[in-house]
């Protein structure tokens, strides 16, 4: 189970591949469920040119670790990887990656979604958008789904 906070551009597919390669799980996992959140160039009807992701270093890791512990208690997970970007980020760059490995698909799907929803609800990250108009605004809340 690995949680990474990353202040530079990451390649989600390379991250998952590299992580999976070093797992000693060959032949044991039948299901991998993955979610990748990517920065869009629009939000709430406005064109966005850049974004700054602030976080509460330390609390982020603590809250994500709690979420992972709760997921492990609820589903039989073989492993999971969470990567979240911080700092300045541009459209089409990945923001977040959640990947779950399990023997069966139900567990993988459920746990991946749970991790993602809990991350959005509880991990202390904040988005400051820079619109194409150059106006800066804080995203006030996450969508519910």
């Amino acid at each position, binding site marked *: 189970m690995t949680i990474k906070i990353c202040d530079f551009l990451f390649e989600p597919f390379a991250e998952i591949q590299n992580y999976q390669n070093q797992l000693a799980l060959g032949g044991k996992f039948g299901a991998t469920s993955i979610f990748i959140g990517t920065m869009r160039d629009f939000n709430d009807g406005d064109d966005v040119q850049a974004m700054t992701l602030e976080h509460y270093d330390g609390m982020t890791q603590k*809250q994500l670790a709690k979420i992972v512990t709760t997921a492990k208690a609820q589903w039989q997970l073989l492993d999971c990887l969470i990567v979240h970007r911080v700092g300045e980020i541009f459209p089409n760059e990945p923001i977040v990656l959640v990947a779950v490995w399990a023997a069966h698909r139900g567990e993988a799907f459920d746990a991946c979604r749970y991790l993602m929803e809990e*991350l959005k609800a509880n991990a202390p990250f904040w988005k400051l958008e820079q619109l194409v108009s150059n106006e800066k605004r804080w995203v006030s809340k996450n969508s519910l789904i």
Partner: protein
Amino acid sequence: MITLRYFASLKEALNRSSEQLNIVEPLTVLDVWQLANPDLLLAENMLTAVNMDYVPRTHFVHNGDEVAFFPPVTGG
């Protein structure tokens, strides 16, 4: 002595990200806010954490604690 931390739009509004405060217990999270920001109400939707765990505003603060105030989170 406790450490107060502010994040995101709240940090910008207060124009500072952290400060230290000498306190005399007992004191709740909300008491701490009002001690540090006597002229400002903490908006209903602001979140509060002590030592990096979410707590209600009625939670009692102890010397050595890190008390954080921040707006709804928007990661992911």
